[in-house]
């Protein structure tokens, strides 16, 4: 098991590479959902300003 974490001496390069990539994957999911939620809130606010029932 420790040889897995050691990555044949390349641990200092392999693990950060995986960490950065997975961080980018999860941040993208978070950012995309946040962007949609913001657009929806903004659209809802616009509708209310027009005095329409939302």
């Amino acid at each position, binding site marked *: 098991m420790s040889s897995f974490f050691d990555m044949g001496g*390349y641990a200092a390069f392999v693990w950060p590479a995986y960490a*950065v990539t997975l961080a*980018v994957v999860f941040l*993208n999911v978070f950012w*995309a959902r946040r*962007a949609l939620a913001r*657009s*929806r809130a903004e*659209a809802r606010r616009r509708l209310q300003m027009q005095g329409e029932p939302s």
Partner: protein
Amino acid sequence: MAWTWFHRFASPPHVYRLAARLTPWFAWPAALCIAAGLWGGLVLAPPDYQQGDGVRILYVHAPSAWMSLMVYTTMAVAAAIGLIWRIKVAHAVAASCAPIGASFTFAALVTGALWGEPMWGTYWEWDPRLTSELVLLFLYLGYMGLRAGIEDTQRADRASAVLAVVGVVNVPIIHYSVTWWNSLHQAPSVMRMDKPAMPPSMLLPLLLMLLGFTLLFVALLLVRLRGEVLARERAASWIREVVSV
């Protein structure tokens, strides 16, 4: 008629609803492919005979680099369609692509640096492949900066679309940089005319990661596209239906 189909397809309410319906069909397969690819790349694939376990960086570096180019190409094609046929939804697709592409270009550069240090003895070199990939990051950032700097969405769409279309010349430059010039970077080992230059135990996890990232891109694009479509529609009545939940 083909054109009525096309207009229906590009109509914002249709796109919004279709995107919402399609998202899980891309998101879950993406998660499965990436999970399997990670397991394959980190555990099942053998160490390289020259690079040892350092070669495992391949399974995150190549998919990130692939994303950086595929997303840019999608963005440029959508921007061109938006410019030529004045289709709002096409501009919305282009605008949705940029942050996704920029972040994966960043990942490609960082994982490349982390691979370069142990194998080439340097994190960075002003090498054709590395430099052109850095230019790609600046193209994405320039595109996003330009959009952020223009208040009016229609004008932002058109100005940024021109930048996206012009910048697409960089895509073949990046891809062929390793064959056109002397580069530190190795030549393609999968996307080439011959059969791939690696055993199936390495190729399979790589293909799973490439497929997983591509599916993830579509899912992210669909989610972002809905937000961009909403932002472009001012008083449309269908908006009330889709946001009042």
